[in-house]
């Protein structure tokens, strides 16, 4: 299998603290990878760097054959729009938009017709089992449903890789398990590459591979 992510000697300093310290690793296309580590170990920063949300101080990151370290802010935004999907711990939905509109959010800056937008949203909503709640607003949904909307949003542009930062952190264990099963299903059915940040061993054990981070460095891989 070919690599979709290649990280080489990646370093990031925040203030005087070296949050990521000369990390190198790669991720294969279609892989379900878990990044584990205690609080403050640098896993969220690593996720931000991989997704082009943050610029590295040293080293380079190639995602989907694109070198993120040489891109401008606008180029990174376009890169994220078409190549990367995000799922957050606190769902991060827009409260003033309904389910369909939240799912279609990455399409808003494009000149996509309203009909296309709703068709595409409907398709991914179906894939995550949300067809009954399309005109509801986030505050009318349960935590599990909100996370499904976030997952559907991450899928709308058929990204090459999805990054999920503690996606079950705000959910009860049963709902959390359902979300992990959904992510796993998307990975197996669609061959969707997934990178999951978690501190939960049970969830990490669902992945193909685990990278453990400690003090900004890779402690071990298995």
């Amino acid at each position: 299998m070919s690599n979709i992510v290649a990280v080489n000697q990646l370093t990031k300093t925040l203030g005087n603290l070296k949050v990521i310290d000369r990390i190198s690793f790669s991720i294969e296309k279609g892989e379900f990878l878990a990044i584990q580590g205690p609080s403050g170990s640098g896993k969220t920063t690593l996720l931000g760097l991989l997704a082009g949300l943050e610029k590295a101080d040293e080293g380079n990151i190639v995602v989907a054959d694109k070198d993120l370290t040489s891109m401008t802010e606008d180029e990174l935004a376009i890169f994220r729009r078409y190549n990367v999907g995000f799922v957050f711990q606190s769902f991060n939905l827009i409260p003033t938009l309904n389910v369909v509109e939240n799912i279609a959010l990455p399409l808003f800056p494009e000149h996509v017709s309203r009909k296309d937008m709703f068709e595409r949203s409907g398709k991914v909503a179906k894939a995550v089992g949300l067809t009954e709640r399309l005109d509801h607003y986030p505050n009318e949904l349960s935590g599990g449903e909100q996370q499904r909307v976030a997952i559907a949003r991450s899928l709308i542009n058929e990204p090459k890789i999805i990054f999920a930062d503690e996606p079950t952190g705000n959910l009860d264990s049963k709902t959390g398990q359902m979300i992990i099963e959904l992510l796993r299903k998307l990975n197996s059915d669609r061959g969707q590459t997934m990178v999951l940040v978690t501190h939960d061993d049970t969830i990490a054990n669902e992945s193909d591979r685990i990278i453990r981070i400690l003090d900004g460095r890779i402690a071990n891989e298995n």
Partner: protein
Amino acid sequence: MFRYAVKELLKRNKLHLLNVITIGLVTLMVITLNSLASAYRDAARLPFEDIQGNIIIQRNGNVPENISGVLLSCSLAPIPQELISEIKKIDGVKDISAALTLWVFDPDNFKRVSGVDFHDSFGQKLAAKLIDGSIPDTDNQILVEKTYAQKNSLEVGRETTISGQHFTVVGVVGTTGNEVMASDVYLNLGTAQEMAYQSQSLQQVETFNDTDINIIFINVGQTSLKAITHTIKGIISNPDMTTGKTPLGQTVGSYNIYTPESFENQISSLFHISDKLTWIISLILFFGVAIIVARNALRTILERRKEFGILKTVGFKNRDIQREVSLEIFIQILAGFLIGLAASIIAIVIFSRTTVSIAIPWELTAYPHFLLSNPNEANVTQAHLLPIKLEPLQVFASFVIIMAVGLATSFLSVWQINKLKPMEVMRHE
């Protein structure tokens, strides 16, 4: 994007509503204040509607010791024809007409008599008020004012005597009696001049030549009014025009020049404010709205920091978010402006039903107050409905300024949005 902006405005409405209300209120106040200022400026021109001009010139004269016979309306002095010739030479003077106003104390009654050139613009304005008959063709024909005619049983075709001369009434004019230079009788200017010239009682007070007049009406373009008034003041300060001696040995007094500005000071109203004050208030209001809208826009951005972070994360460029925020600001401004404009129209309709009172200087409607049982009756006041209207230029100017406020706020927002780093926003979630 438009849908997103509209939903944002409708769903998160507290600060946006405050912006819309603030913009609406300021629009209402600025448009209404400016319309009021224009309306009072226009109201000051209303007394001039009766005379087809916007500058009136008179000259102060002497008070006669004996009130009898034919006199100049007290206390006006004769104005030489040379002044008219000089004024005619000024660039921008569209039209000039002159008249001679007299008091005639006949044994049976007193009458205010005006000598008018029925073919000049003032004469034509008078002709437009004819309710019966026609304008005089010959020197022995006159027009009479309706009330005077009723009081003295005069009608078209009847004969009457003025200072011993016989005249035939050929027309009746309907006036309110409050007009500038309202008279009981109107006759040919030449006839009036001859009557004044022959009057011993008048010649004892002032030296009157048979071509003199005592009131001039000048019509000039509104924009050149100030400059022409200034030029006229220069002409009348010439010693040849001012230092004539009267038979009583007194120096002829100074000239009075009336323009709409003179009447503005005579208007009494709670809502009468000057243009300058209106502009100062408007600027303060615009400055206030700029601060409030900018403050609310920045507060909104701070409140929506996380939301903008999400937008950046899912692939919005800075420019996309700026466009979104600018669209929201534009919609708020447009909504606020339209609400303010609608409220202004209602306010203008209400104000258009109010009356404005304009005190006319006594010299312009000279009536011998000693003949009145109540001397206060000599103080003439004109009452007009306030000529207020929505000025498209003011509406446009207000819109442009409000839009400029929005544009400035947009730039401020852009600056704030560009500073947002999505990872920082996410890290602090």
